[in-house]
């Protein structure tokens, strides 16, 4: 989608981040809320729209970069975090936001998920978790609950779902939250703070799929979510304890925020001279001589 950069007059608004293409999601899809929040969050951040790069994998949710007015990459299924890491390392002045689905991020992309967090790459990763493979017509995903009948589990799923929030804390993410696509205000705030956080920020967003989960899915979630309160976000063990809690309720909010650790770009000495993409290319004659000398 070509999205001619609109001249922004005055403070940017969410409208300035609207793409030229209308979202092709089913009416009522939870992803609309995430898109709207992200547009607000970008606007709030106040940088030029060309300073953002929105990277996704493949899935309904991963179509998002097409609907937003920033640079975008719609990469391979499961590979968004690796591509985004490469882009961030090449130009750490870009604000790189990664969006995708639970299948994309926790299924096929699981290895990049844990290792990108371990390395504390300075990204905001937003997963639209609808507990299904939406685009491929509703198979069980790594977050599908036990017992659920799906395209691939006609007699009910027998595999325990994974816990993205707990996984993120353990893996080394330094900003870990859960949100709900219908709780737009909280979601937007978490996004803004996540973009401002220097390090890996992760938001697991409950973003229901009405097509494969049925119309009642929003009510199901509205009835269960409640806000994480009286919680010390700097305490890792406490965050984990909250994260592994099971039961009827699902907590929303910021679970963990590590403000001490440095992100990889902050620790990488070769970035001292500015973004790689803008540094001098090649080898100077002096450098070349020094190299050759060691070979003689």
């Amino acid at each position, binding site marked *: 989608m070509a999205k001619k950069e609109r001249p922004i007059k005055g403070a940017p608004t969410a409208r300035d981040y609207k793409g030229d293409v209308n979202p092709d999601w089913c009416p009522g899809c939870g992803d609309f809320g995430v898109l709207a929040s992200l547009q607000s969050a970008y606007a709030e951040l106040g940088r030029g729209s060309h300073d953002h790069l929105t990277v996704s994998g*493949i899935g309904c949710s991963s179509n998002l970069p097409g609907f937003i007015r920033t640079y975008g990459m719609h990469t391979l299924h499961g590979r968004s975090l690796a591509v985004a890491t490469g882009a961030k390392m090449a130009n750490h002045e870009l604000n790189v936001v990664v969006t995708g689905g639970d299948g994309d991020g926790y299924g096929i992309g699981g290895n990049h998920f844990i290792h990108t967090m371990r390395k504390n790459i300075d990204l905001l990763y937003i997963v639209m978790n609808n507990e299904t493979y939406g685009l491929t017509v509703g198979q069980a995903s790594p977050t599908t609950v036990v017992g659920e009948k799906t395209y691939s589990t006609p007699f009910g799923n027998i595999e325990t779902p994974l816990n993205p929030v707990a996984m993120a804390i353990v893996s080394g993410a330094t900003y870990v939250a859960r949100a709900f696509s219908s709780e737009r205000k909280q979601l937007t705030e978490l996004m803004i703070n996540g973009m401002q956080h220097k390090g890996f920020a992760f938001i697991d967003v409950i973003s229901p799929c009405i097509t494969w989960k049925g119309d009642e899915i929003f009510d199901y979630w509205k009835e269960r979510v409640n806000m994480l309160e009286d919680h010390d976000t700097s305490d890792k063990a406490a965050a984990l304890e909250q994260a592994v809690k099971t039961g009827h309720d699902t907590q929303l909010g910021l679970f963990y925020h590590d403000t001490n650790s440095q992100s990889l770009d902050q620790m990488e000495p070769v970035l001292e001279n500015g973004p790689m993409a803008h540094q001098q290319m090649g080898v100077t004659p002096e450098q070349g001589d020094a190299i*050759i000398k060691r070979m003689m």
Partner: protein
Amino acid sequence: MAKYDFVVAVGGAPGQGIDTFGISLGKICARYGLHVSTYSAYQSLIRGGHTFLTIRISSEPVANHGDEIDLIIALDKNSVEKHIENVRPGGAFIYNEDDVKKAPERDDIQLCPIPYKKFSSGIEDRKLQRRALNTCLLGTTLRLVGAELNVLEEIIIQTLLKRKGQEVVDANIMVATAGYEHAVENFTQFDDKFEKQEPALAFVDGNSAMAMGGAAAGVKFYSAYPMSPSTGVLKWMATYARELGIMVRQCEDEISVINMVIGAAHAGCRAMCATSGGGFALMSEAIGSAAMMEIPIVVINVQRGGPSTGLPTKTEQGDLWQLLGASQGDFPKIIVAPINIMDGFHTMPELFNLVDKYQCPGMVLSDLTLGMGFTTFDPASINWQPEIDRGELISELREMDGEYLRFQITDSGISPRAIPGTPGHIHVVATDDHDEDGGLISDEFTNPHKRRDIMEKRQRKMEGIVKLLPPPTLEGPEDADVTLIGWGSTHGVISEASQMLNGDGIATNHIHFKWLYPIDEDVVNEVLANAGRSIIVECNYTGQFARFLRGETGFKADGHIRKYDGEPFMPHHIVDGTRELLIGKTELYVPYQEIVV
């Protein structure tokens, strides 16, 4: 000066410093201005492993390890037993006499036992004592070939002083001197001796040469997952990362490696990675994605013996079809196989300019022989500032009439590429098919006419590329009776075999392919029109190149010489094979590997 051509080989266990021996001797040769080509027959570093390093030294450029070994140095008992028969008659054999109960028996060579224990008894640190053996025998070696000891001393200081300290340097110099002096007194020198020639050369391995070529081409991002025999590229990059300002990242797997390269390339860096067959297989999905998003990347595959995990420490040219078939569907791509170590250096900027211009993936097909082999080169032959042509890259706001279309349909198929961060050019690139402005064809709408247009736009790039790629080279007489055809790393050995055949009165020429894909049928057939009785030489079982070449050009060779036992060709394998094929009993000759490690 008569041509000097001498082959030294050293055998031992990992940890005994065979590499050090090789690098030191290589550097000594380089300082003498002598040319070197090495081949290391080795195994993974675990107990029981054995390494046999062959170092060919010549007054003229040389690119294979030769047919005969003049001098063997055995660092352990195992090597004495294994390799005593591998010296040519009239050659010499150096070994540590403490290792063997009974002296090896061969009366057609000079046996050179060294009383190492005695020489090294002054070294108190046992480990140091054990480790200095190679230096001692190198001292002996230098005397036999007529090189001077002080060059070795300089090299010991250069390589060890800073890392290991004075004590280690002193111990090494001491035993080197003892080894040298012992030879002066007890052994006869070879008739042909080292003679200094100008210019002094430098000494480098193939993986480093490719890394250097990448650095010269302006690579700013390199990612890797370790995989033999490609890991040397990572090592060079990691070593020089800070000095040259290159971002080097080790990843969780090869899928991450190539996807990071794609991300970095999209954000504006020249970016590359290297791996071997299995790692490349994992990368294959992303190769197609780079082509679809029109992002220029370079991937190096340093081939080893396959299939599967196969022979991690052995060579093969077995991944050609893997590269040809990497990723689903049709898309623009370039495959190049450097023909010798230094060609690996020169290839990188050439390839980067092409992939930047045509915004597509470029693949380099090297192999263990090339990647882990060493050669010497004239520093003056290295161009550290090759032309860097980034093609139609936009990184600044500019005047446009109308909207920026990332995938604009053009006659050349090339669409100007803006990098993220550039004002005024916001766009999305996608692995789904898309129209000119990046809008998805597949998900949102599916228009067969738009699809056809964009597919043809992409593929038109191939027409531009194929015109820029040099044709295969023809060496030797135009109208020869026999034509040897090869590709990639075998250039040096085929070239020498061809000369030998000509010397034996069989008029032979040599056609060699470096740029493998795309192939211009007409141009190639014009070169192949010079072929006499044609023989394709390659290092794999099914004749991957022969089948590919026939498919692209219709050319069917008269005979084939193939090797797939893990060891590289020696010149006489090809000479013998050619003779056999000329007799006409067979269409396929598979040489017998004489030297077994």
